[in-house]
C-alpha cells in the first residue's frame, strides 16, 4: 500500500508523452488512441451514427424485455398471469388418489385466489393427514402449477422444522432469519410460495413470527404479501381424521360422502389444543389466518393398488395385476380387526415393487 502511494507521488505532476506504467500513462495512451482514430472519425456522419445508435437501443430494448429473456431465465409471474385450472384438475385427478376432499378444496382455493385480481390476504392452506397420504406430493404439485420449475424454482421455498430450525434455544435467531427471508423474497417476487413441512415438530411460537405476513394488511413496510401462498404440512390431526373416516366406514356411508364441514371444525380445535402441533395456541388459528384446513384421508387397499399401477407406468413397465395385488397385500393395514387403511399410505411402494417385479421376472 505504501509503495503504491510513493510510486504515484513520484510521477506527480504528470509528464507528457512516452509509454509509461501508472495512471497518467494510461491517460496518455487513451489520448494517443483517440488521435489515431481521428481520421476514422471523418467517416462518421450524423445519419449513419444516428441509425446505429437507434438499432443498438432497439436491440437492447428487445433483449431486456421480459418476454424475450423469460424464455431462457426463470421470471416471477406477472400480475396478469392466471393459473390453468383445467391442467391442475387433470393432474390432481390423475395423480392424487383417494383424496376427493383435498382435491376439491385445493382446486377451488387456488383457482379462486389466482383469478382474484386483488386478494385481501395471502393464501394460507393447512394440510393435515397421516403419513403417506400425499401432503408433500400435493404441495409440490401446487407449487409446480404456480411456478413451472416446482421445488427447483427460485420462488418456491421449502422449510423443514427438523432441518432448518433444529435447536430450541435458537428460536429468536430463527424468527429473525425467517422474517428477513420472507420479506426479502416476497419483495423480489410477489407470487412467492412458502411450504412449511413438519409443522408438528416446529417450535411453538416460531410460526408466530410470520403471523404479520399472513394478515389482512395492504402493505407491511412497503411490501405487499397479498399475492403470496403459504402452505403448512402437518401430521397433527391425522388421528382425528382417521377416526372420522373410520366412523363413516363403520356406519356404512361411502368415503365420497365425507364433507369438509364434517371435519373442519373438529380439526381446527384438535390441532389448536394439541401440544405437539406447531400451531398450538398459536395466533395463526386465533386470528383465523388459515384460509383452508385441508384434511387428507387415510388410503385404502384400492388406493394403494392405484399407487402401484401409477409407479409401474411411470417406470415404463406394463401393468401386471398379479404384481399389483402382491405389493398391495404386503402393506400393513389398520385397525387391527378390520384392516382397511394402509399404515404408511403409499410409502415404501417403490421398494416393494423392486422385489416383486424381480420375482415376477424370475418366474417368467
Amino acid at each position, binding site marked *: 500500500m505504501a509503495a503504491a502511494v510513493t510510486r504515484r507521488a513520484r510521477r506527480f505532476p504528470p509528464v507528457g508523452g512516452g509509454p509509461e506504467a501508472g495512471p497518467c500513462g494510461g491517460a496518455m495512451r487513451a489520448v494517443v488512441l483517440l488521435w489515431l482514430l481521428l481520421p476514422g472519425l471523418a467517416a462518421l456522419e450524423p445519419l449513419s451514427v444516428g441509425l446505429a445508435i437507434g438499432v443498438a437501443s432497439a436491440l437492447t430494448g428487445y433483449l431486456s424485455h421480459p418476454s424475450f429473456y423469460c424464455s431462457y431465465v426463470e421470471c416471477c409471474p406477472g400480475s396478469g398471469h392466471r393459473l390453468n385450472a383445467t391442467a391442475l384438475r387433470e393432474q390432481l385427478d390423475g395423480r392424487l388418489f383417494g383424496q376427493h376432499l383435498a382435491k376439491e378444496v385445493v382446486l377451488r382455493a387456488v383457482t379462486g385466489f389466482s383469478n382474484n385480481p386483488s386478494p385481501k390476504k395471502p393464501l394460507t392452506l393447512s394440510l393435515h393427514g397421516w403419513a403417506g397420504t400425499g401432503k*408433500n406430493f400435493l404441495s409440490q404439485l401446487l407449487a409446480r402449477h404456480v411456478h413451472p420449475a416446482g421445488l427447483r424454482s427460485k420462488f418456491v421455498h421449502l422449510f423443514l422444522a427438523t432441518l432448518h430450525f*433444529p435447536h430450541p434455544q435458537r428460536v429468536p435467531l430463527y424468527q429473525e432469519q425467517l422474517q428477513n427471508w420472507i420479506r426479502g423474497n416476497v419483495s423480489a417476487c410477489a407470487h412467492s410460495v412458502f411450504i412449511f413441512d413438519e409443522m408438528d415438530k416446529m417450535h411453538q411460537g416460531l410460526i408466530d413470527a410470520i403471523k404479520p405476513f399472513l394478515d389482512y394488511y395492504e402493505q407491511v413496510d412497503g411490501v405487499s404479501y397479498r399475492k403470496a401462498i403459504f402452505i403448512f404440512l402437518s401430521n397433527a390431526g391425522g388421528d382425528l381424521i382417521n377416526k372420522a373416516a373410520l366412523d363413516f366406514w363403520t356406519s356404512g356411508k361411502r368415503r365420497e360422502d365425507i364433507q369438509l364441514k364434517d371435519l373442519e371444525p373438529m380439526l381446527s380445535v384438535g390441532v389448536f389444543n394439541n401440544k405437539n402441533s406447531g400451531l398450538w395456541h398459536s395466533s395463526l388459528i386465533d386470528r383465523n389466518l388459515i384460509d383452508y384446513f385441508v384434511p387428507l384421508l387415510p388410503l385404502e387397499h384400492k388406493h394403494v393398488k392405484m399407487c402401484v399401477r401409477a409407479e409401474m407406468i411411470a417406470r415404463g413397465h406394463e401393468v401386471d395385476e398379479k404384481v399389483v395385488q402382491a405389493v398391495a397385500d404386503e402393506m400393513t393395514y389398520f385397525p387391527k380387526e378390520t384392516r382397511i387403511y394402509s399404515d404408511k399410505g403409499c*410409502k415404501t411402494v417403490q421398494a416393494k*415393487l*423392486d*422385489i416383486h417385479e424381480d420375482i415376477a421376472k424370475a418366474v417368467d
Partner: protein
Amino acid sequence: MEEGSIAPSPCWCHLQSFSCGLAVNLFAGDCELWSVKSSFTVRIFSHLVSRVVVRAVRGFLSNAQAKKPLALSLHGWTGTGKNFVSRIIAESIYKRGLKSNYVHQFVATLHFPHAHSINLYKDQLQSWIRGNVSICPRSIFIFDEMDKMHAGLIDAIKPFLDYYELLDGVSYRQAIFIFLSNAGAEKITEVALDFWRNGKAREDIQLTDMQNALSVSVFNNRNSGFWHSTLIDRNLIDYFVPFLPLEYKHVKMCVRVEIESRGYAVDEDILSRVADEMTYFPREERIYSDKGCKTVDAKLDYYYDL
C-alpha cells in the same frame, strides 16, 4: 446381471466422464459399470439376505427416477455378516469400496461418543451429508452400531431419507443409507429357533415372517438407535434385512473359504476341529454359533502354524 445403462454413472466417472461415456472399452479397467457381483450369492450364507439385498440394490440402481434414497437396515447377531454385506455393496458400486471418497462409514461409539455433545453431532452430521451428496449424488453412508447411537441423533438425518425432490437445492434421491445393528437379533433367533424346532428347513423362512416382527421390536427396543425414532414412524426404512444366526455347517463353510483364500489345501479334519472349537447356543440344542464367523481366522492360525 445386465449392466444398468439407464442409471447415471458413479461419481468417479463424473470426473472423467468422457472415458466412461464412449471410450469405455479403452479404459475398461478403470471405469466401473454397475454390477452387483455374484460374490453376493456365493459367500452370503443366508438366503434371505442375498435375496433381499441383491434385488433392492439392483432395483434401486437401475431406477433413474427413484423417489427417495435407498435405506437398508441390517439386523442380526454378531458375526453374521452385516459389515461384510455393506462392504460388498460398496465394492459393487465403487471400485475402491469402503476406501472410496464417496463411501462414508460412521461408527456410533467412535464418531458420536458423548451424549452431551449431541447437538454438535447433529449439526456436523447434517453438514457432512449435505456437503457430500451435493458433490456426489450417489454417495453411500454406512452407520454402524446403530443400537449404540443416541436416540434422536438419527432424527437429524431423517429429512434426507424422505420423499423430497430437493432440499436446499440438493437432491438426495440417489444416495444409499445403510444402517447396521444388533437390535432385533433375539427376535430373529427366536423365529429361526421356532422353525428349527418345528422341523422346518432354514430356507423356508420367509422375509415377511421376519420383517414385521423385526420392525416393531426394533422400534420398541430402548437400546436400538431407532427407538421411537421417526425413521420407522415415517416408514423411511425401505428394507429391514434380517441376518440369521450361523449354524455349525456355516461355520465350516467360513473356515473353508478362509483356508482357500490363504491358498492352503483344505483339510476336512482341521475344518471340523476349528468348527468344534467355537461355542454354540442355546445350551441344550447347541445349534447356532455365538460369535458367528468371528475368530475363525485366529483359530486357523493356530492349526496352520507353519
